[in-house]
């Protein structure tokens, strides 16, 4: 946001300048001498604060902001100590709703204009503004139009006093009682950085944290306020087994044995092709990897798809040259094929809007129906739904990018599930065929960790690390003990096969095809046609209710691990609360099932899973738990192409992130804690120099349930596919079998 000099707390003395200009609106000039702590400046600051406090109520004890209030902090640091104001303070009704989610206490407002400026400059929907004048000046929405912005929660976070309040957090906690962990929001695939806060083992708040390459500190309201479901009453907290037609609560061993038993039976009778896995875009990379290893390495089926027929083919997402979000800022041109980013990946909309409006990047709006970006588009080229972008538009965009210099960023997702993905794929291909332009694709698939799941191989024809089944066959056969013989079915194919009775066990990893698959009738027939459904979910969705075995899993906020966003950035998500009931991490469930199927993953902690991924998944090579933990902005895969971007946390910041000892989202509060000039260590944490945990990444025992369709293990040591660095420790002496606890550690 541009500086406006509203609060006047930064008045300073500048040599040779009359009066006291506000520092925030005074550009630095050559040889300028600025004094910030002279007697005169201190007197002025005391005076300004006295004025700011004249009408500010003394209701700090019941104010949500009390304890994390910049006005309190300023008063403590620079205030006069006592007030000469003995008159009656201004009174308003407290608080009034600006929308369903945002409340306004006008008595506390100090008219800094942060909220109105955010709404206008950043979000582009100025539904609030200053109203009236003098001491009656107040921020208000228009009578008939509530402050219903997709980004309204940010105004609550940046409000320097307790004037703007979030209805769901009001009176919930005192800030000093909150335990904080830095994490990423996984509501959509942008993965905005945030700080998740809990009180008494309940998540009460998510705050935006400034991650420069991704969210600039902002969150959308969907992500910020969509946190209550973690503790929802209808979470499934215990494993269930269908007994006599009804789901009954059972112990974990019973449920796992039942699922593994059925899988074993079907493997014996019908082979691995009768088992299919849907979903997996909800969890962490570790969850996705473990399930990919279970499905492809142990069971031997390639009928695995983390998308619900609502995304793009894995070949496209994994095969194109990926753009980073920051590429939009320096792009020669941006083409948006769909969907409407504000609806599906909201904070990406903020970045695109900024690039187009503030940075002058020409934006081509090529979505079929238009939407939020249209007002900022340099060119609007509506395409017919189902048709690719016209050749003239492709050429114009290419010419624009060439003339301006910089990459051509194509934002590509499905505009709607009613439209087949072909149009988007053909459009991407048209751009990809261009000569002399650096075309990069920003996948706008929206599911939380769909990109992580795709990278971990939860797609037909793929193995972890962006390698195809064929390219990775030797490598993974050696590490996993086997991979599927041939390419399997995608979600459409799986449901169709299921409807025809060819799938005997269907695993739903948080998938709800009845609700999410474009063809609901097909999904219904599929679920009716499958004799055995294993649901790994947190809720009894319509599809999961059909389960024969229900395995409750942990969710965001309850699990540690890494996730991968739409640009390929791997970041840590943090566990802030203990899981509900006996819910288990997905990766642990996969590991338990694998063990029962005769394969010991030998993974005891989530870091070990991360490290195994870093050791075996070609695109993720080197992205160890230790590296991701230390990299301030996460790491972008593949590492070798993005080493220069890694910023390693200093010790202080690292403590900040890991233990939540401080708050990095508020510049005033973080000012003292953040060490200046955290080193931008380019290339420092090169993967080859990092020490990996000595965890053997190999299946120790051959699965008992090997299928005949597996490729036999290659006799010669296979070469690693498409990877340039990193050494993989071979299996050491077998460790004694660890007794597994069923609760997450």
């Amino acid at each position: 946001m541009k500086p406006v000099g509203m609060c006047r707390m930064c008045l300073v003395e500048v040599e040779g300048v009359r009066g006291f200009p506000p520092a925030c609106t005074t550009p630095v000039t050559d040889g300028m001498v600025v004094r910030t702590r002279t007697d005169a400046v201190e007197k002025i600051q005391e005076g300004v604060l006295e004025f700011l406090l004249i009408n500010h109520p003394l209701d700090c004890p019941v104010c949500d902001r009390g304890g994390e209030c910049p006005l309190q902090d300023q008063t403590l640091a620079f205030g006069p100590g006592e007030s000469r104001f003995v008159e009656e303070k201004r009174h308003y009704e407290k608080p009034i709703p600006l929308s369903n989610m945002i409340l306004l206490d006008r008595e506390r407002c100090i008219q800094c204009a942060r909220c109105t400026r955010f709404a206008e400059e950043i979000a582009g929907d100025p539904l609030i503004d200053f109203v009236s004048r003098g001491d009656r000046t107040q921020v208000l929405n228009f009578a008939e139009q509530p402050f219903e912005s997709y980004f309204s929660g940010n105004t609550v976070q940046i409000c320097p006093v307790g004037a703007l309040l979030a209805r769901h957090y009001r009176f919930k906690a005192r800030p000093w009682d909150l335990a904080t962990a830095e994490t990423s929001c996984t509501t959509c695939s942008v993965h905005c950085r945030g700080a998740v806060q809990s009180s008494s083992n309940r998540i009460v708040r998510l705050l935006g944290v400034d991650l420069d390459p991704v969210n600039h500190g902002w969150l959308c309201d969907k992500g910020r306020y969509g946190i209550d479901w973690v503790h929802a009453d209808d979470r499934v907290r215990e494993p269930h087994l269908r007994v006599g037609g009804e789901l009954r609560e059972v112990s974990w061993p019973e449920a796992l044995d039942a699922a593994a038993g059925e899988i074993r039976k079907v493997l014996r009778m019908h082979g691995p092709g009768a088992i299919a896995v849907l979903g997996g875009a909800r969890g962490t990379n570790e969850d996705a990897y473990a399930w990919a290893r279970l499905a492809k390495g142990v069971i031997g089926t390639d009928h695995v798809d983390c998308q619900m027929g609502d995304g793009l083919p894995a070949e496209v997402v994994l095969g194109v040259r990926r753009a980073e979000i920051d590429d939009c800022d320096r792009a020669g041109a941006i083409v948006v094929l769909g969907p409407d980013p504000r609806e599906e990946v909201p904070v990406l909309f903020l970045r695109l809007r900024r690039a187009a409006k503030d940075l002058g990047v020409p934006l081509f709006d090529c979505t079929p129906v238009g939407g939020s970006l249209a007002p900022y588009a340099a060119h609007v080229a509506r395409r017919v739904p189902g048709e690719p972008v016209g050749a003239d538009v492709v050429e114009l965009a290419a010419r624009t990018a060439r003339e301006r210099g910089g990459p051509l960023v194509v934002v590509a997702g499905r505009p709607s599930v009613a439209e087949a993905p072909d149009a988007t794929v053909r459009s991407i291909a048209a751009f990809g065929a261009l000569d002399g332009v650096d075309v990069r694709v920003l996948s706008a698939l929206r599911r939380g960790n769909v990109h992580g799941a795709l990278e971990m191989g939860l797609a037909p024809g793929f193995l972890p690390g962006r390698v195809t089944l064929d390219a990775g066959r030797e490598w993974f056969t050696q590490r996993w003990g086997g991979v599927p013989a041939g390419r399997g079915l995608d979600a459409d194919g799986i449901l169709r096969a299921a409807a025809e009775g060819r799938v005997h066990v269907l695993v739903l990893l948080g998938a709800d095809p009845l609700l999410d698959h474009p063809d609901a009738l097909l999904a219904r027939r599929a679920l009716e046609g499958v004799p055995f459904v294993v649901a790994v979910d947190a809720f009894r969705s319509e599809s999961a209710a059909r389960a024969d075995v229900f395995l409750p899993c942990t969710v965001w906020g309850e699990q540690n691990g890494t996730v991968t966003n739409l640009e390929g950035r791997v970041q840590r998500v943090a566990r802030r609360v203990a899981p509900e009931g006996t819910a288990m991490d997905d990766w642990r469930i996969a590991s338990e099932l694998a063990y029962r199927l005769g394969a010991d993953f030998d993974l005891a902690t989530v870091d070990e899973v991360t490290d195994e991924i870093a050791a075996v998944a070609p695109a993720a090579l080197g992205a160890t738990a230790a590296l991701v933990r230390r990299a301030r902005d996460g790491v972008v895969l593949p590492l070798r192409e993005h080493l220069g971007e890694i910023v390693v946390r200093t010790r202080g910041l690292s403590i900040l992130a890991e233990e939540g000892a401080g708050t990095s989202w508020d510049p005033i509060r973080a000012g003292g804690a953040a060490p200046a000039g955290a080193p931008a260590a380019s290339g420092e944490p090169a993967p080859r120099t990092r020490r990996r945990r000595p965890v053997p990444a190999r299946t120790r025992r051959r699965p008992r349930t090997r299928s005949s369709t597996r490729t036999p293990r290659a006799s010669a040591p296979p070469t690693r596919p498409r990877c340039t660095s990193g050494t993989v420790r071979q299996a050491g002496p077998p460790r004694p079998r660890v007794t597994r606890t069923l609760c997450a550690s």
Partner: protein
Amino acid sequence: MSFFTDANLARAREIVARYPSPKSAILPLAHLAQDQHGWLSPEAMEQIAELTGVTPAQVFGTCSFYTMFKLRPCGRLVVSVCTNVSCLVTGGPEILDHLERRYALDPDVTVEEVECIAACGGAPAMQVNYEFHERLTPELAEDVVDAYKRGALAPRTVSGARAGGAA
């Protein structure tokens, strides 16, 4: 549904076209709307927002800054009585008090207290729809307002424009 009458809508479009930035037309359009309707209603502000490409909240914010825009219904005669220093010592408050009582139940007349209206030479002074009347007593003031009510004096519009004059 359009708030502006057809004639005023055409006029509004013409006003918007006068400025390099349509946003600049908010104030003249607010005058136009107030003259048409007698006060500045939410519907009026919504249409002004539409015509100038801003949100209704921004029109509301702008218009609420100026006391000449009436955001609530008022009489067709707005009587502004000055009680600032010169008028204060020459009887302004008495005039205000008298008129407030006299027209308390009269829907045609809205009496308001205002700060200095730059007529100290003729204090005590008041405006009726922004037309000055000076050297008043409570009785004289009442006569003036009644003259407007009777039609003996032709009032300006609520926004202070001469009837038929430019906005």
